């Protein structure tokens, strides 16, 4: 598993394709929101969590499949399938890579978001980090699982958002609600049902991905 993570991160370090496109897309979505809606500062702060997660979801849905689609484009997916490793661990390795890439993207996007939305994130960063991690884990799990299915289709990059986005709706709702509460100063224990939904979604899709990857991987 470590070998796959090392190889993917090394490739990304060389090209910086995924993180760069994620960042540019994320910033563009935030900018479009600002100018298209012509928000007052108060409205901006109220809508900030939704804007942040919309930027993350749209960007990630377009870029997250790269780790598996690039394997197929390079003709290397087969090598992973026949490698003497548990196929579930391929999913976990790709999930870790996507999680790292999305986390780097979010770390670079959050200061831009804070500046544009006039939201203070420094005071609440530990709680915000937990919510962001949980939301990102769910997005990465769904994206990784369905990227493999999408990689086998002709319209690879457009197919993944079509499959993944509907499934991500509960996750995004929960992440937005938790982020809103955290930015308002709530503690993690006060997040209630939305946090439960967030963590349950993560557990479900990590488990499904790990178990189902075997069947999705071989044609």
């Amino acid at each position, binding site marked *: 598993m*470590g*070998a*796959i993570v*090392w*190889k993917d991160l*090394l*490739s990304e370090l*060389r*090209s910086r394709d995924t993180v760069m496109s994620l960042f540019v897309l994320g910033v563009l979505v935030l900018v479009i929101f600002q100018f298209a809606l012509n928000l007052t500062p108060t409205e901006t702060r109220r809508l900030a969590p939704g804007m942040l997660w919309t930027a993350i979801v749209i960007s990630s849905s377009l870029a997250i499949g790269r780790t598996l689609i690039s394997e197929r484009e*390079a*003709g*290397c997916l*087969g*090598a992973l*399938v*026949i*490698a*003497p*490793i*548990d196929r579930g661990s391929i999913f976990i390795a790709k999930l870790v890579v996507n999680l790292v890439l999305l986390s780097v993207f979010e770390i670079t996007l959050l200061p831009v978001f804070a500046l544009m939305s006039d939201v203070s994130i420094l005071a609440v960063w530990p709680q915000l980090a937990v919510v962001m991690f949980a939301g990102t884990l769910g997005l990465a799990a769904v994206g990784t699982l369905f990227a493999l299915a999408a990689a086998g289709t002709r319209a690879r990059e457009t197919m993944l958002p079509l499959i993944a986005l509907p499934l991500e709706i509960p996750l995004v709702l929960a992440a937005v609600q938790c982020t809103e509460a955290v930015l308002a100063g709530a503690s993690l224990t006060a997040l209630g049902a939305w946090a439960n939904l967030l963590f349950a979604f993560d557990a479900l899709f990590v488990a499904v991905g790990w178990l189902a990857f075997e069947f999705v991987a*071989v*044609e």
Partner: protein
Amino acid sequence: MTTSELPAVSAAAVRRRFGPLEALKGVDMVVPPGTSLALFGSNGAGKTTLLRVLAGLLRPTTGTVELFGAPLPGSPQLRRRVGVVAHESFLYPDLSAAENLRYYARLYGVSDENRPSELLASFGLEAVALRPVRTYSRGMLQRLSLARAILHRPDLLLLDEPFAGLDPAVSALLERTLHALHGAGVTIVFSSHDLEGGLRIAQRAVIMYGGRIAWDSGAARPSLEEARDAYERTSVRI
């Protein structure tokens, strides 16, 4: 039957369908360990599909495949005994040859740290080992693909058209390598369009036509004339 006597490959009534197209129509084949077998046949005969099924890259629609007595897809231990050279190089274009081999060495649990550099040297790739693979020629890619496939010292080597598009020097190197591997007891199954070249390596020839095995030379190495005659009888049915 001891483990070493079990067939390296055993395929029974293997069929594989791609939508309406049936690429394999009931293939039965037993390959004893240590055999070098060439699969011949015209385009669309089913050679690539059969090799991909044997490699575990494709699931058969029906039928069973066993490698060394264990059914596919098999355990990681079984997959470690197999090396594959497919149409795709299985190499990452942004990584260098050395990085590609180091990656596969880790993936296959190769403990000998010198093995990648030994192979790069024996395949004449030492001088370009640090160059990204995307800058390689077809011959260099094929040499590196073979190095990758034998990195973990497999007992069974499956090669799909390994000589396609190679210049005579690289073909000769590949031929010498396959001879050496066969001499070391590795079971080799490869596909080829070139009867003469294929029979220089293989001790057994199988001709496929229309998704079936149309002719099998059996254990004895066929002469070129025999194979050519069989190829014309089975494959050229215009």
